[in-house]
């Protein structure tokens, strides 16, 4: 199989081909969409055992304060993100957002306090813009190191703990959102107990030249199967997690997107470090006044999947569109179609009946609480 010349390869590219993956371009990388097991079985295997995902296309960025004080780096980063970075304890990670002056979202990411530096994982499609954004805001006070060639693999599912602990016993003691450097078969790896499937599991950052060896080591365990981006998408959708570019983008605010929880009290109105990030004048008032629309779960009543882009209506015929489906498909663990989308605040209560237009027909949906499948994080 030939790779189109303009696509980049992750350190696991040859492993994907060897495993018989069906490859496609994603965010500039030639990525595995599915393996011979197929999306349905890959999804179910991850929820029942463990799945190994190549997420090396995502951007890893380190930030160090020139002063040597981590808090200075954290406070500098807070100028471009509404989340509380300064109170993040060493060895802890949290979900972050980059906002723009209109209150919209430029990306979502993970940020960890690694003791002497901050460690960020940002979306593949946004990583060059994110790096430029961070450099523009932080270069005076911080050293910024992009590690875009490093490997990153996710091991997700109920068997993830026992599999990783067999190589690195400390993995067992980590809690959800803990971050630590572990020795995996002689390789220093930055491991977080997190992921994007709703399952317990780990994300493992590795030197590029050791990523293939460690991935093969983990795959050697019978409980672990390689999982492509197809199942990654259905897993995160069932978990109610946003996909940047689909569910959230530069026009959705954190309040619209039902991500208020990601902005801690200390950055909200009346907090010790209130505001001070792009779009604060739009976002903070929305905490009190609400947003006119909001992201909700949508459960089709029938069997037909309702996919991204479908227009939403209040009634089964006529009327103007009231919103749009932003992610949708079949949830193998939910056992039926699942979707997310934006609806007016007045129609956002779980159980509200609305309709989506699919192939010229109006299909009934119920607004549903997220997630569709309960998460199993180790808290």
């Amino acid at each position, binding site marked *: 199989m030939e790779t189109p010349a303009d696509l980049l390869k992750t350190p696991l590219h040859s492993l994907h081909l060897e495993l018989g993956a069906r490859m496609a371009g994603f965010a500039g990388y030639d990525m595995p969409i599915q393996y011979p097991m197929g*999306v349905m079985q890959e999804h179910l295997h991850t929820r029942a055992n463990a799945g190994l995902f190549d997420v090396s296309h995502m951007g890893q960025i380190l930030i160090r304060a020139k002063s040597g004080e981590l808090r200075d780096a954290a406070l500098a980063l807070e100028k471009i993100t509404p989340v509380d970075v300064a109170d993040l304890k060493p060895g802890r990670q949290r979900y972050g957002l980059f906002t723009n002056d209109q209150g919209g979202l430029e990306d979502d990411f993970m940020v960890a306090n690694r003791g002497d530096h901050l460690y960020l994982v940002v979306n593949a499609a946004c990583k060059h813009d994110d790096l430029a954004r961070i450099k523009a805001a932080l270069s005076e006070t911080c050293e910024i190191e992009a590690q875009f060639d490093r490997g990153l693999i996710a091991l997700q599912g109920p068997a993830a703990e026992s599999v990783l602990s067999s190589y690195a016993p400390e993995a067992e003691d980590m809690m959800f959102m803990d971050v630590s450097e572990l020795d995996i078969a002689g390789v220093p790896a930055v491991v977080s107990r997190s992921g994007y499937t709703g399952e317990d599991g780990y994300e493992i950052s590795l030197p590029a030249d050791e990523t293939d060896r460690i991935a093969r080591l983990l795959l050697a365990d019978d409980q672990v199967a390689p999982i492509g981006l*197809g199942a990654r998408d*259905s897993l995160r959708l069932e978990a109610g997690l946003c996909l940047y570019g689909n569910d959230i983008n530069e026009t959705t605010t954190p309040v619209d997107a039902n991500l208020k929880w990601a902005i801690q009290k200390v950055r909200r109105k009346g907090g010790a470090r209130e505001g001070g990030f792009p779009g604060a004048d739009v976002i903070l008032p929305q905490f009190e006044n609400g947003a006119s629309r909001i992201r909700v779960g949508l459960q089709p009543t029938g069997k037909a*999947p309702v996919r991204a882009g479908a227009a939403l209506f209040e009634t089964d015929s006529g009327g103007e569109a009231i919103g749009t489906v932003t992610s949708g498909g*079949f949830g*193998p663990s939910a056992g039926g179609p699942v979707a997310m989308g934006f609806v007016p605040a007045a129609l956002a209560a779980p159980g509200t009946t609305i309709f989506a237009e699919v*192939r010229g027909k109006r299909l009934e949906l119920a607004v549903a609480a997220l997630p569709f499948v309960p998460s199993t994080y180790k808290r």
Partner: protein
Amino acid sequence: MLKFTEDHEWLKIEGDVATVGITEHAAEQLGDLVFVELPEVGAKLDKGGEASTVESVKAASDVYCPLAGEIVEVNQAIADDPSLVNSDPTGAGWFFKLKLDDAGSANELMDEAAYTSMIG
């Protein structure tokens, strides 16, 4: 008489009625199906018209009407259990029966050897 289309459908032609389904190659490419929408019995379709929709976990795809004709029967079993299309695409996973406007029109389609060579 068994015929094939470039859109990976098979037709089993008996008299002026064609039983239509998707090939094993197509079923494998689509992956596990989770939803099938069948045409209405009595619908008159042109060659290349949208006859059916199949959906996998990831995506929706159209199944086109291979020749002009009228839908005279549909296989409700695959709407109830779409996995039949994956497990037995050329048997129990058939989609619909089409009464051809012109029984001779099937001659222009590929035979099995030509289809096999097309998918390589």
